[in-house]
């Protein structure tokens, strides 16, 4: 290729890159309201991202079927973060600047929500995370909200569960040192569990997320003779841990947090995860709320697929936003923000939601058990 044609190519390329930038920012005048969503539709946490997205999409479809908001139709503009670091910032900037989104919904993973939150805060656009539980997410600023509980609450719930339901006096903690989520939960669990006298931590051991061999740590845990083992980690690691614990005849209950909730836990773990417990945001079998209607609507929309907690939270994030638009009567960012912060006792799929002064949802958690290859509802724990 000669120099001249290279120049032509560069010019063409530059033109191609600049073209989309020529569109006017903000599409509000088009008679529709744009809601931005960023989610991990591909990559490592795709299972979580897709569920959440499907819930959100169902909510938007239902809202439009009921006539939209403020006389306008809603349009959900979704961007994929590919479960990658760095991608959230790019796509959220685009959603705000180019698509003119009135609010941003996302993400599942706390690390990626933390990436996008400062951008939304700076632009003055409200962001609602469906299921990021790390406390730091909403600490970013007054435009950042969430519809799920946070890790200190989840850790305390599991501590109460271990004491009251499992009647465990000695608990071993097995933490994934690579994950903030796991370390946070382990810390809050420990604080909650040791609050009452007569309870002790048998042993604390660590692993690196993605490890495949846990026998060294599990042998040491077995040697410490705990009544139960708390393993706050994600489902793949949890399944392998349970398999190897069974092999070592470490036959005590294992329990974890919402990172356990995936069909893959049973697919990989099989028999070995039977009887173990975890806490999560929602169960289709729990009483009250709009649970039953939501399950029916979701099954109808997605070929009989049963919604998980991520789907329910994705749905709730969109519904809380719609509720705030209705109450505030405006999509103007400041008014929308104020209306969101005012949310009181909203009857959501995942329980009654009140947004507290730190912009987190105050709501209940549920405990599930793996039973016959399915998740069985055990109890609801209110704050």
């Amino acid at each position: 290729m000669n120099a001249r044609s290279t120049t032509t190519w560069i010019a063409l390329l530059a033109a191609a890159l600049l073209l989309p930038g020529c569109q006017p920012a903000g599409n509000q005048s088009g008679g529709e309201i744009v809601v931005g969503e960023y989610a991990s539709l591909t990559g490592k946490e795709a299972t979580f991202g897709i569920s959440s997205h499907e819930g959100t999409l169902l909510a938007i479809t239902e809202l439009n079927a009921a006539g939209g908001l403020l006389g306008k139709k809603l349009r959900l503009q979704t961007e994929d973060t590919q479960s990658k670091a760095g991608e959230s910032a790019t796509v959220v900037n685009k959603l705000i600047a180019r698509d003119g989104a009135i609010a941003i919904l996302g993400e599942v993973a706390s690390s990626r929500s933390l990436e996008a939150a400062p951008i939304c805060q700076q632009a003055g656009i409200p962001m609602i995370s469906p299921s990021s539980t790390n406390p730091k997410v909403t600490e970013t600023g007054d435009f950042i909200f969430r519809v799920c509980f946070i890790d200190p609450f989840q850790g305390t719930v599991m501590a109460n569960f271990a004491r009251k339901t499992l009647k465990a006096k000695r608990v071993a903690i097995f933490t994934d040192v690579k994950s903030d989520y796991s370390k946070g939960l382990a810390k809050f669990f420990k604080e909650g569990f040791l609050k009452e006298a007569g309870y002790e931590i048998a042993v604390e051991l660590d692993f690196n997320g993605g490890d495949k061999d846990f026998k060294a740590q599990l042998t040491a845990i077995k040697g410490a003779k705990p009544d139960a083992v708390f393993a706050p980690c994600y489902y793949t690691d949890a399944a392998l841990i349970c398999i190897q614990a069974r092999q070592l005849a470490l036959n005590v209950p294992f329990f974890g947090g919402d990172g356990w909730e995936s069909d893959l836990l049973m697919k990989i773990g099989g028999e070995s995860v039977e009887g173990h417990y975890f806490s999560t945001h929602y169960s289709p079998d729990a009483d009250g709320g709009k649970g039953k209607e939501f399950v029916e609507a979701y099954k109808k929309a997605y070929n009989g697929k049963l919604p998980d907690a991520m789907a329910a939270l994705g749905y709730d994030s969109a519904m809380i936003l719609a509720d705030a638009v209705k109450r505030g009567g405006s999509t103007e960012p400041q008014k929308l923000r104020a209306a969101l912060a005012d949310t009181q006792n909203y009857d959501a799929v995942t329980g009654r939601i009140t947004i507290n002064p730190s912009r987190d949802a105050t709501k209940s958690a549920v405990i599930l058990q793996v039973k016959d290859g399915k998740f069985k509802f055990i109890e609801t724990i209110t704050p």
Partner: protein
Amino acid sequence: MSQLLQQTINGLALGSIYALIALGYTMVYGVLRFINFAHSDVLMLGAFAAYFLTPRVEALLGPQSIPGAILVVVASAVICAGIGMLIELLAYRPLRNRPKLTVLITAIGVSLLIEYTCQHRHVLGAETRRFPTLFPSSDFHWQGLTINSNDIVVLSVTLFLLAGLWFVVQRTKTGTAMRAVAFNHHAAALMGININRVISFTFGLGSALAAVAGILYALKAPGIEPLMGVQPGIRAFIAAVLGGIGNLPGAALGGLVLGALETFAGGIPGVSNYRDGIAFAILILILMFRPAGLLGKLQPEKV
């Protein structure tokens, strides 16, 4: 006491997997004097080959039969041998007369290419999948100790392949040619040795070993995904260096030592999170104080 014994068993079981992977690294290094970083990805491809072959073989021979398992392992090894030869043909052969560093960097590139292509959702996808149970396994319990039958299989396969490789390299005509190429490939070519064929064979053999290791690794921890090879691959590389890279028994010894050290570290509260650090500290210490490894002989760099 029983905990110490149990940790020794765990360590040997883990170490023999590392040893098996390290054999492939060290053999390719022995002939070509270069680290094939794509080895750990061929390992992953071996596990996936078995994942896709198993349902078909089971339809033929019934579920969890020993002949079926052997058939799956052999077929996956053959597939991976083909992949290994293809990688060599496309990526390394054009660089045969370039500096060693070029080939090394290309190897890292090939490794990343395989990992990220496989993660695409239209190829394999990033999701973890359950690896099928190829043959029935059971746990033997004795005085509070547990030994899994799979671990015994892994250890015997490693020893068997070590002996087999030693035989191939030391006692066969192809092995003699491999050693000749390792010694001086210009001189070997002048003696009438078809260098391309020997190198291709070495890659095929190394990749077949990787496939076997991948399947045994997947049996131990039955969740497979495109990045599953990275972590054991690095450990095996360290094991190969520890034992003396290029030295077959050294690779096996290095693997066992590393597995045992990691396991003992993993069982101590407060130290367990430094498990990876220990592996890398060993690499640094070995390179500083005994660069030829435990069983290797130091030879001056050929210019």
